[in-house]
């Protein structure tokens, strides 16, 4: 199969390579860039575990081709903090017990980050609506909602 060159800036670093035109962005992130924080849960755009930010907007990276993302900027969970100084959302998910197995968590946090950028003080109802594209099988969502609420407060919303 033919290969096409792609160049994607992920978390501020440029990753380039030759990929098949059909290669999914999520596989580029996980395999080519070696950033495995982004997960594959359903590969049909239903679960949101693969959620990243593509040029600042959340995208399900299992439904984007790597070639489509060429020239773009992608942010993944690994780019949200250096792993030591946590982002307020990470801190809040930890405080509020917003995760159990952690598999949905990177996608949840990336989706929540966009929500808070657009709506710094969301109601619980608005948080639930914003996260309906991200499935969590462990937490029953309640603590995730509480975590996003807490992070909103910490980030200056109310």
């Amino acid at each position: 199969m033919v290969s096409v060159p792609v160049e994607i800036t992920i978390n501020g670093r440029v990753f380039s390579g030759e990929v098949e035109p059909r290669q999914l962005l999520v596989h580029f992130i996980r395999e080519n860039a070696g950033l495995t924080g982004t997960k594959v849960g359903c590969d049909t755009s239903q679960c949101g575990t693969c959620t990243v930010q593509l040029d600042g907007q959340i995208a399900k990276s299992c439904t984007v081709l790597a070639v489509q993302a060429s020239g773009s900027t992608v942010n993944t969970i690994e780019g949200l903090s250096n792993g030591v100084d946590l982002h307020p959302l990470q801190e809040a998910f930890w405080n509020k017990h917003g995760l159990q197995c952690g598999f949905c968590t990177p996608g949840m946090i990336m989706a929540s980050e966009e929500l808070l950028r657009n709506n710094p003080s969301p109601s619980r109802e608005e948080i639930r609506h914003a996260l309906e594209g991200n499935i969590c099988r462990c937490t029953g969502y309640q603590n995730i909602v509480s975590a996003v609420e807490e992070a909103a407060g910490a980030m200056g919303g109310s």
Partner: protein
Amino acid sequence: MTTRSFGSGIRRREDPRLITGRAPYTDDIKLPGMVHAAILRSPHAHANIKSIDTSAAASQPGVVAVYTGADTDGVLAGMPCAWLIPGSDLKTPEHPAIAKDRVRYVGDAVAVVVAGTRYEAEDALEHIEVEYETLGVVINPKAAAQPGAAQLHDDVENNIAFTWAVAGGDADAAFAAADVTVSDTITLPRLIANPMEPRSAVASYMAAMGELTLWSTSQNPHIARFLTSVVTGVPEHKIRVIAPEVGGGFGSKIPYYPDEAITAFCAMKLGVPVKWTETRSENYLATTQGRDHVEEVEMAATSDGTITGLRTTVYAGMGAYLSTAAPGVPTILHGLMYSGAYNIPNISGTIYGVFNNGTPVDAYRGAGRPEATTLIERLVDLTAAALDMDPAEFRRKNLIPKFENGHDVATGIIYDSGDYELTLNTCLANADYDGLRAVQAAARAEGRLVGIGMATWVEICGLGPSQVAGAVGFQGGLWESAIVRFHPTGKVNVMVGSSPHGQGEETTFAQIVSEELGVPVEDVEIIHGDTDNTPMGWGTYGSRTTVVSGGAIAFASRKIKEKSKELAAHLLEAAVEDIEYDDGRFFVRGSDDQAKTIQDIALMANVAWNMPEGMEPGLEASAFYDPPNFTYPFGTHLAVVEVNAETGHIDLQNYWAVDDCGVQINPMIVEGQVHGGVVQGVGPALWEGVVYDDNGQPLTGTMQDYALPRADLLPDINVASTTTPSPHHPLGLKGVGEAGTIAATPTVYNAVMDALRPLGVNRVDMPLTPEKVWRAINDAKNGG
């Protein structure tokens, strides 16, 4: 300063690696030279394989090898069923990892391709040519058990894998003497566990040493090692199973799967590491499912509202083969629980385990108890209605009164301790039950369909003792073990055999050591999930891990305390009998200014400069804990729903849970388990269920068609608890992982039925989709 940590909702120590995306799950493992496997699955629910031609696939780009069932002949043994329930006519037909001449469900493995990349492996699958001759298909478990139904296994008559009976008292006499009897047929659809992480396996074989390493998304790595040995023939001590981070299991990662055996087989044949990861659609076809019951049930009572008897005939779909623990689920974990929270003196049940052309069924969160609790709680509501009694009042009248040390139930088991009326009363008070009924009456007067439903529940968990495991045919033990190791600095490593996958036990286990030995929680590291550096364990399922492994950790800690006392006595030049212990410090009675801390003791034991005569150096202990009985958590849940009569849509408005799981180590984690459990129990009441067409094709093939609970569909859940310690557990623990799931399905089902009662509807099959509810409402309106 006190280091006591029980009852404190401290943050989980496992979270930093998870919230930063740094923790490795199995599919994140990458080994040098690794190749990828993809499995060809049967497109038919039942067919003979006439021929397979793999030659075109073998010449596709990147393909390293293609194997079929014939290649595994004499190499791989059949897939084992490890729960051979006694007192039944259980049949275990051969289950090859790769089907040889017949496929029995859509998803049965037919061949495997190994290639350089996953894309190449999946591409090549399309070039394998298989000629099938289709056969008759049966899906409904009751229909499958009837004479004349299509037969899955030649030597299993009427597809009946086993018949199992439970009896206590004289149910027939109770029914003959009853003032009122009610009956119902309850279907519990097949469910998909849906852990967010798909299953995956990575196998690596070092031929020169004969050593096999398997990374696996397993809930029980030691069992996986044991069964890998049975199937591959590699001796157990040459196998290492590593379960790194596991993204949820809910029972579906207990079984030993053909896919793991196939991945190991490929690695052994090829001498290079092989990875296989399922897609979500493969998860829907080839990962074990749950429930699938048709329950014909009856309850007998006297006119004063006393339940006198229960009778059941249950058809439990097993799928095409008996999965690892499958036979135990509808029998031991279901039939023995028929009494629920009530005094029911006369019980008789017959359970048929039935082969059908579906994916094999095994444990799914609650495993057997949601099926039992739904059955009882539905009958309790129907009986209360028949007697024109309030369902809460009827429950209160029949609950087993408070007991602290053992209560015999008719099915032959002994509940450990309970105060069922307390959880009922607490739940009713929290929800303002009388107020809710008043609101409901007002709504009904306006013609609105508002319903209130509840369930009082008990479950069997903390699975052990091993003696009972043997008596009920489980082909293993049910103890757990732990090694507590103090370093010279006083820091601690704890190695445990069981391996959690999201339940936060790295934190609660550390809290146990802290509680027992006064070590700060952050000085304790929990090591699990790797059979090479942990002692044997039987696994995380059935809400047993904190209870049974926690017991082992407590006992190992207590051994350390005993040795520390002796060493302290030596160092303080006192008699052991005069040494007292408090919060990590050992001192001579009456003079605690001379105390030796546990850290002092750890240092002295490790440098061993000055030990009592004959004492071994080091401060380390291992303990095996085999519980003396099961534990029996309990509770009451209550929900309010409103049904839209025009659309059949159900709005779940409010939910209250009051659970008693004995002593709580970390209330934050307990509450999180209840939240998640409740949502998994609401799912099947309202939305979830596998649907097959008449040819056995699953119509619910992706998350698009299988409706999972999402954030916007649920209210916040009001969670409260009571504390009734288990009398026989060293820490008073009972377990809480399945509570919510067991209670929520009947709670929400009863609420919807309560909403529909004024219309005269008293039965709609789960899941209660808007279409089914709308039809039921319309049929009722049209006098149906």
